[in-house]
């Protein structure tokens, strides 16, 4: 998956979904809402969704006397980030809620996010544990609970059936099946050279912890046993030429390859199904939604995915009002009505809620999965969402080390170095970068 694209889409969708109030109909509607700051207040809420958020805000304003929300529509995700940096520099017109634009730790290191623990704590049970974890640093909420769009798989059933193979349920079997498919000229998965997100997600799934806070310092370990499990699987796939390396920058070529029957499996999140349906022709109806493979020794089913939570910026004087609005937009039935797509009437998957089963079947497109019922596909998505780890700490300098990881991943995919060497190099880069920034850390063994 293209991390940047996925991240951006996930950000926009999860942020939009969270802020749009597409998240109603759950027990959270009865969760105690935090008290708004005394007296009527007006707060600015930023976003780049031009379709539904304004309707949600209007509905909120119509039903609340003490808080008035002013939705400040930004031109794009990028424009939002640029403008936000500017207002934080000028300390003027700071909004009271920002959609997620970076991992919460990065947001905190940049000095942007307020501690909103006292406001989120009373309402947190409405949200999944993964969503809660993603919004916390060192046990405190610096962001609003945000759920990841969890990974599941789309298998080309026609390809598997043609060669008499079963869709693998473990990563170890994934390699075995990949070897068999290779003999028929089919690759088992696509690993784009620019995108190491598969490695991050598999490491997360295996239980890796690359960064952890230990008192006043960071513990860094990109070479723990869990990570090495993921590294080993990917290395086998690469060494045996079982994977394709189609870039996400060349979308027509990518879709054409996926659609050609030369690729057996595609990892994806719920929001990308429609895009595949729109761009596939020959393989429409041949795909089947399946669970993401597990590691053989996994004790329970887990899926991967990370989220970048929205936050209340430092400088906002009404954090309680901001949290009350976001909580209402995330859980109220009125919000879901207001947030429906005006043209299609559709709603998204409210990824931050504890149980999304009621929403997943509605987002399944009608052609790509052929005879597989939408309810069954929805169940796969819900299972992934409900089992999402959510938290994967990316440390205080994610922006700095991720491009380095892209470089190293690219070299590993081109077989210039091994993935293990790549992880060693990235860890060395992180140490150097943290040194230059004066951040305390310890590299774990």
């Amino acid at each position, binding site marked *: 998956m293209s991390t940047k694209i996925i991240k951006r889409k996930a950000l926009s969708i999860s942020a939009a979904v969270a802020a749009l109030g597409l998240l109603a109909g759950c027990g959270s509607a009865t969760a105690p809402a935090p008290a708004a700051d005394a007296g009527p207040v007006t707060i600015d809420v930023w976003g780049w969704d031009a379709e539904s958020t304004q309707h949600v805000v209007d509905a909120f304003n119509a039903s609340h006397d003490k808080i008035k929300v002013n939705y400040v529509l930004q031109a794009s995700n990028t424009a939002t980030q640029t403008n936000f940096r500017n207002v934080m520099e000028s300390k003027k017109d700071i909004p009271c809620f920002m959609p997620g634009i970076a991992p919460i730790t990065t947001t905190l290191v940049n000095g942007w996010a307020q501690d909103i623990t006292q406001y989120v704590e009373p309402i947190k049970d409405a949200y999944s544990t993964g969503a809660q974890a993603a919004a916390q640093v060192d046990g405190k909420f610096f962001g609003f609970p945000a759920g990841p769009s969890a990974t599941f798989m789309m298998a080309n059933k026609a390809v598997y059936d043609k060669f008499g193979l079963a869709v693998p349920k473990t990563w170890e079997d994934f390699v075995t099946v990949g070897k068999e498919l290779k003999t028929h000229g089919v690759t088992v998965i696509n690993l784009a050279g620019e995108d190491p997100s598969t490695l991050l997600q598999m490491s997360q799934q295996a239980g890796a912890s690359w960064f952890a806070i230990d008192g006043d310092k960071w513990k860094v370990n990109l070479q723990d046993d869990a990570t090495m499990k993921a590294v080993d699987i990917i290395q086998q796939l690469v060494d045996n030429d079982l994977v394709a390396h189609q870039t996400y920058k060349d979308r027509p*070529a990518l879709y054409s390859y996926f659609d050609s029957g030369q690729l057996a499996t595609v990892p994806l999140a719920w929001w990308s199904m429609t895009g595949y349906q729109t761009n596939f022709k020959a393989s429409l109806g041949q795909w089947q939604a399946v669970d993401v493979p597990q590691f053989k020794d996994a004790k329970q089913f887990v899926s991967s995915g990370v989220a970048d939570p929205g936050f209340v910026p430092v400088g906002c004087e009404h954090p309680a009002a901001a949290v009350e609005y976001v909580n209402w937009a995330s859980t109220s039935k009125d919000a879901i009505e207001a947030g429906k797509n005006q043209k299609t009437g559709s709603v998204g998957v409210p990824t931050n809620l504890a149980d999304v089963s009621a929403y997943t079947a509605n987002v399944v497109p009608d052609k790509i999965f052929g005879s597989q019922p939408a309810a069954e596909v929805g169940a796969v998505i819900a299972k992934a969402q409900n089992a999402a780890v959510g938290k994967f700490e990316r440390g205080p300098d994610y922006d700095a080390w991720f*491009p380095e990881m892209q470089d190293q991943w690219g070299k590993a995919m081109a077989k210039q170095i091994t993935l293990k060497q790549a992880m060693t190099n990235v860890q060395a880069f992180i140490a150097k970068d943290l040194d230059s920034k004066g951040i305390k850390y310890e590299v774990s063994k």
Partner: protein
Amino acid sequence: MSSRVEVRKSLDGAEQKPSRQARAGASASPRFSWRTKQRIKGASFTWPFVIGFAVFTLLPVVVGLGQSLFSSKTSGLGFGAATVSFAGFDNFARGLVDPVFWDSMLRVSIYAVVIVPVIQLISLTLALLIDAVKRRVANRFRLILLIPYMIPGIVAIMIWLYLYSPVVGPLRPFFGLFGVHTDFFSGSMIWVSIGNLAVWGSIGFNMLILFGALQAVPREIFDAARVDGASEFRIAMSIKVPYVRGSLVLTGLLSIIGTLQIFNEPTLFRSISPESITKDFTPSMVIYNQAFQVGNLNYAAALSIILAAVVGAASVIIYRLTNKVES
């Protein structure tokens, strides 16, 4: 009468004494002479440029210089505001020995050594060809060749990404017709692909400058050469090219400056061939990465100034060398 008459006299270059009325007028506004006012009026046409240059070029340079003299550090877990302190020339000292930065500089310099002569040669050839045909035909080709220059860089790259695409692009099957099976996105071809894009995007502008210079060459010299039996090729090589040497130096310098600062092409091609084009592939990419990924604006500012100094030095050296050759 006064001022209009005065203007006419001045324009005529008459060195007559000013009339009584004119003297009276001058004494009425003693602060500026007529000539000074004219100069101010003339200079006022440059104000839009001067203001833009000051705000968007000089001011950022000054701000960048200021930024480069400081450094910021956090402590502990890195949370909270960073401490900014005066660092003197520390950032410059680090930049001057940074192997990542200088490797990228070497890489781009080698690329420039290859690509700039290619651009110059093609631009000159096209300019000579267009100069040799009838004006109506020349105008058509001039416009067609300028189109790539008019297309924004990022758009051009997206177009070429499609053209190069091994699956949906038309180039691969086209070359396949001649038995050439190549992948424009492969590591071994990536420089060629970027270079081709650079040539495509810049020959139009260079050709226009050179064509303009060729148009200024006195035509009677060609007639004299033809009477002496010179061929068109000989005229081109012995008369036209020497006449446009100044413009060749200009386009060469502009190409060198642009090439050393190359950013758009490798940044987008990085997705295609990340094992070859790393985040620190060119000096501008190193600077961008330091500023917007690593978050070290101070060091990025210092590197920007070092890059500007290198580009400036390269320009001066080449300008002097070409002047020597000319003299």
